[in-house]
């Protein structure tokens, strides 16, 4: 079957914060660029980010990028690559100022400068005390940022392919990436989009968990496509539980609530974080706060009839601060928890929020994979940025506000790097024969299957399994059983069927294709977690409670083929400063 082919210098898959920051560089350079997105750009999940963007502007008091770097390295439990962290923290002020110049409606200080609020794990002078580093637009920072970037892309006349889903990567026999196959949802048409640079900015895959702050669209599509094309996924055992998801609903309550002075209480009204993190208390890093909450609940000090949540108290901030700095949180609490936080505390539980792992890249956004003796050999033509990538600035645990920063810094860096390649002057390489076969076979199977299991049933089973077997606290028995169950689900995914056979906006087909990606993310996650016999950051194992630097200070690489694992060293060589050597982590 011959498909229509469209050619571009570069294609960007995903129109969230990272994709649109990159596309801005590309479009403004005059290259031909196509940006594909499953949803209209402003509906991408960046829109749901609430609290802020970390940058050492020093508007509220002394700050430095080196302190930010130290906090990020420590937050990562030393698994983050220090060259990448150094680059991100150094670039942070510049990308924030640029975003202001683009028109971002940041909150302001009386002197007209950008307001900054405290956030978890951010400190002055290498952990001495809390620092105000997060710029914000009330508690809608992601929304303001995503709309600002879209608006700037409208100005740059970026070409968007809205409601197009990328299906599979196209690689030639030498391994170079030459584009993607993609499905136009409205018409059901499949096309080959050919490019000299293919940039993934497809976001996370939090929908492998039953309880998640993530949007429905966060199905790890980029990771699924990369894995099927033979590219490994890095550090997939590290998933961040955000301490404050609304109990029962999963909807996010920003850490900015605690940044502004909110506190966590157990059933006896005790501010329990004082016991676990005497210095930063409720503003310790997220892995530590989530584990502490889980511990309180496990030991019977949870609240409510089932003692299964803790309370986030913020009424003491007063209505003025809540209405000015946290207005959406109040809406969410009223709508999803039946409480008005001006008067009552919000019931919260640790909830899956962010994927630290992803497609391995370097600081230019180039995808890297082991080749010969080089663990970080560049995969030509292929780039990844944002949550789908693992560069790795977040290591084993991401600090709050570093995700939006990651999108801006590496979106811009990858865009600039691709512009610097002068792709307009190069010819397109020939597409390999049968470039679209794999994607077409998946579609043909779905169209042809008369009966089979429902996508919703298999998806729900997958989500329940990952939730049960890969939660806040993990152990060998749970993980081993989880691996077996996920491998069985892998077989069930191949047998799903959909009733809807229409060409027109077939959302059942889209969900089935997303399930193909979710299962890859789930396999990578649980197999990597089972193998790592230590506790580090978000990987907390009750059977191996300590960090083990002698054996495990290394990145995991999961390969889909044979579910093989390999490891590579952590980068401990920042360019302009000395490395921060691993030490005991307390807050």
């Amino acid at each position: 079957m011959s498909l229509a082919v469209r050619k571009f210098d570069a294609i960007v898959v995903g129109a969230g914060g990272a994709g649109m920051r990159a596309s801005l560089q590309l479009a403004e350079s005059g290259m031909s660029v196509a940006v594909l997105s499953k949803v209209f750009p402003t509906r991408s999940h960046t829109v749901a980010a609430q609290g802020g963007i970390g940058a050492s502007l020093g508007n509220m008091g002394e700050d430095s990028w080196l302190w930010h770097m130290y906090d990020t390295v420590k937050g990562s439990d030393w698994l983050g690559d220090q060259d990448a962290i150094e680059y991100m923290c150094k670039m942070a002020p510049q990308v924030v100022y640029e975003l202001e110049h683009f028109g971002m409606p940041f909150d302001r200080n009386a002197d007209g400068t950008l307001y900054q609020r405290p956030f978890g794990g951010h400190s002055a002078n290498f952990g001495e005390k809390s620092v105000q580093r997060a710029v914000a637009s009330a508690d809608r920072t992601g929304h303001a940022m995503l709309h600002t970037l879209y608006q700037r892309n409208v100005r740059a006349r970026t070409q968007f392919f809205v409601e197009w889903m990328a299906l599979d990567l196209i690689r030639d026999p030498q391994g170079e990436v030459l584009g993607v196959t993609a499905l136009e949802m409205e018409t059901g048409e499949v096309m080959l989009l050919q490019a000299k640079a293919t940039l993934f900015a497809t976001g996370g895959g939090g929908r492998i968990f039953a309880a998640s702050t993530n949007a429905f669209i966060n199905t790890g599509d980029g990771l699924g496509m990369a894995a099927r094309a033979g590219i490994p996924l890095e550090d997939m055992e590290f998933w961040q539980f955000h301490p404050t998801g609304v109990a029962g609903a999963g909807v996010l309550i920003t850490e900015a609530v605690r940044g502004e002075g909110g506190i966590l209480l157990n059933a006896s009204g005790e501010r329990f974080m004082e016991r676990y993190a005497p210095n930063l208390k409720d503003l310790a890093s997220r892995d530590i706060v989530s584990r502490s909450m889980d511990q309180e609940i496990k030991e019977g000090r949870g609240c409510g009839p089932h003692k299964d949540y803790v309370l986030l108290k913020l009424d003491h901030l007063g209505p003025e601060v809540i209405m000015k700095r946290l207005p959406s949180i109040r809406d969410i609490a009223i709508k999803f928890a039946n409480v008005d936080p001006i008067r009552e505390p919000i019931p919260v539980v640790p909830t899956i929020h962010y994927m630290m792992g992803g497609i391995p890249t370097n600081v230019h956004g180039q995808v890297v994979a082991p080749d010969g003796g080089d663990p970080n050999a560049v995969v030509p033509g292929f780039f990844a940025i944002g949550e789908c990538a693992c560069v790795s600035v977040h290591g084993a645990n991401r600090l709050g506000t570093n995700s939006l920063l990651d999108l801006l810094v590496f979106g811009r860096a990858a865009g600039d790097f691709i512009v610097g390649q002068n792709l307009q002057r190069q010819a397109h390489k020939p597409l390999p024969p049968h470039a679209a076969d794999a994607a077409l076979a998946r579609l043909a199977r779905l169209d042809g299957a008369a009966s089979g299991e429902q996508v919703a049933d298999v998806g729900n089973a997958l989500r329940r399994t990952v939730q049960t077997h890969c939660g806040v606290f993990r152990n060998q028995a749970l993980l081993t059983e989880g691996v077996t169950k996920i491998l069985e689900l892998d077989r069930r995914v191949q047998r799903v069927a959909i009733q809807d056979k229409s060409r027109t906006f077939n959302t059942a087909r889209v969900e089935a294709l997303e399930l193909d990606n979710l299962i890859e993310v789930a396999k990578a996650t649980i197999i990597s977690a089972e193998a790592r016999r230590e506790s580090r950051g978000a990987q907390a194992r009750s059977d191996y409670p300590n960090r083990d630097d002698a054996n495990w200070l290394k990145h995991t690489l999961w390969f889909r083929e044979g579910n093989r694992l390999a490891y590579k060293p952590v980068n401990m060589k920042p360019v302009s400063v000395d490395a921060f050597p691993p030490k005991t982590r307390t807050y």
Partner: protein
Amino acid sequence: MKFRIYRYDPAKDSAPYMKDYDVALDPHDRMLLDAMIRLKAVDDTLAFRRSCREGVCGSDAMNINGKNGLACITNLRELSEPIVLRPLPGLPVIRDLIVDMSQFFKQYHSIKPYVVDDTPPPEKERLQSPQAREELDGLYECILCACCSTACPSFWWNPDKFVGPAGLLNAYRFIADSRDQATSERLDNLDDPYRLFRCHTIMNCVDVCPKGLNPSAAIGRIRSLLVKRAV
């Protein structure tokens, strides 16, 4: 729980029709979207958009018991049965509850939705007082869900000529921004019997906005700026 839902697939249906559903809910199902997800697990041919499920992405706008709103933040307890779901009115239907929003976005793009300032930016942030920044509150929060514009009779009659409440709210967001240097061009762009003045202050926009914004007030401010400019 009982539903009546607008169904139309142009590939196989000669005309749209209403289909009845009766769905068993879980006690944890709180919002209309929760029920629709359950419904889709039974009948996967029902097509609708959804993403964030917390009212910030603007995907799942639809007409719910006669009023536009977001399924994800509409509490089931507030709805009488059968719950009647239709696509947003006034836009072409692609399939079921999914409408073609091209015209809506075309109007949004027509107001130049970005800060215009051609002077070279300073090394750090441009300064803006907290008071000047507050002028943007109630404007920048728009999620482009189209609940307002598709509840507006003036937009139904002239979707190609009238900017509509969402577009005009956003037009004022940039006029109101102390950093924007293009107020006069923006006013020129709107000083037109259709683009702005088709608004007859029917105020449906205010009634349906799921974010509690007030496009009507923004339109009023643009009008007074035009009046002030004329005298």
